[in-house]
């Protein structure tokens, strides 16, 4: 059973489109995250949610909007896609407030290519 699953695995789309990436975890974790990995492999946190409440919102354009319908899901919606949004997006989860102690469980990533 996949612990943190993301869909789709690959996403190719044109500039200006709106797209969503879905994430689900079956670990019973309370906290979920979105990370972005750029072309140089650098990983940076975008958002984190604790029990459906937004906790961390880094300096991300407001075209990116996370949605957490319940604590097992954290979706990422992106409006008006730009070339610079091309990256690999990772979803992750951890037990509440313990990501710093026990680390995260990551999904396998969504490779977004904007053309």
């Amino acid at each position: 059973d996949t612990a943190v699953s993301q869909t789709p695995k690959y996403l190719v789309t044109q500039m200006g489109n709106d797209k969503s990436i879905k994430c689900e975890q079956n670990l019973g974790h309370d906290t979920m995250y979105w990370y972005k990995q750029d072309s140089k492999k650098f990983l940076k946190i975008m958002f984190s949610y604790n029990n459906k409440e937004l906790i961390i919102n880094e300096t991300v354009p407001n075209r990116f909007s996370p949605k957490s319908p319940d604590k097992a899901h954290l979706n990422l919606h992106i409006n008006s896609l730009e070339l610079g949004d091309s990256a690999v997006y990772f979803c992750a989860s951890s037990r509440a407030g313990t990501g710093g102690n026990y680390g995260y469980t990551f999904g396998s990533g969504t490779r977004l290519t904007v053309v």
Partner: protein
Amino acid sequence: AQSVTQLDSHVSVSEGTPVLLRCNYSSSYSPSLFWYVQHPNKGLQLLLKYTSAATLVKGINGFEAEFKKSETSFHLTKPSAHMSDAAEYFCVVSDRNSGGGADGLTFGKGTHLIIQP
């Protein structure tokens, strides 16, 4: 504030020889430290973690790391490299006492490990 520096962007070793991936960190509080591995086109897998227990931490696949507070280092080692170890390795820090809630991790820029046959 926290940061992590991986001193080598690429490391190349021969199969069967030791591996050393270097990491230095800075943290305002007592840090938790992690090593993650990312194989090509795959997600991130936790190799090992340090969270204030024993300073020598053993992880999966024969990897281990030693937390040295005086040197602010958390280097990753393996006695004998295997071809399957070829991957990207990330050193990660978190300030455990920087506040509760959904804490974020700070990643290093990664070290690409190449294994020569």
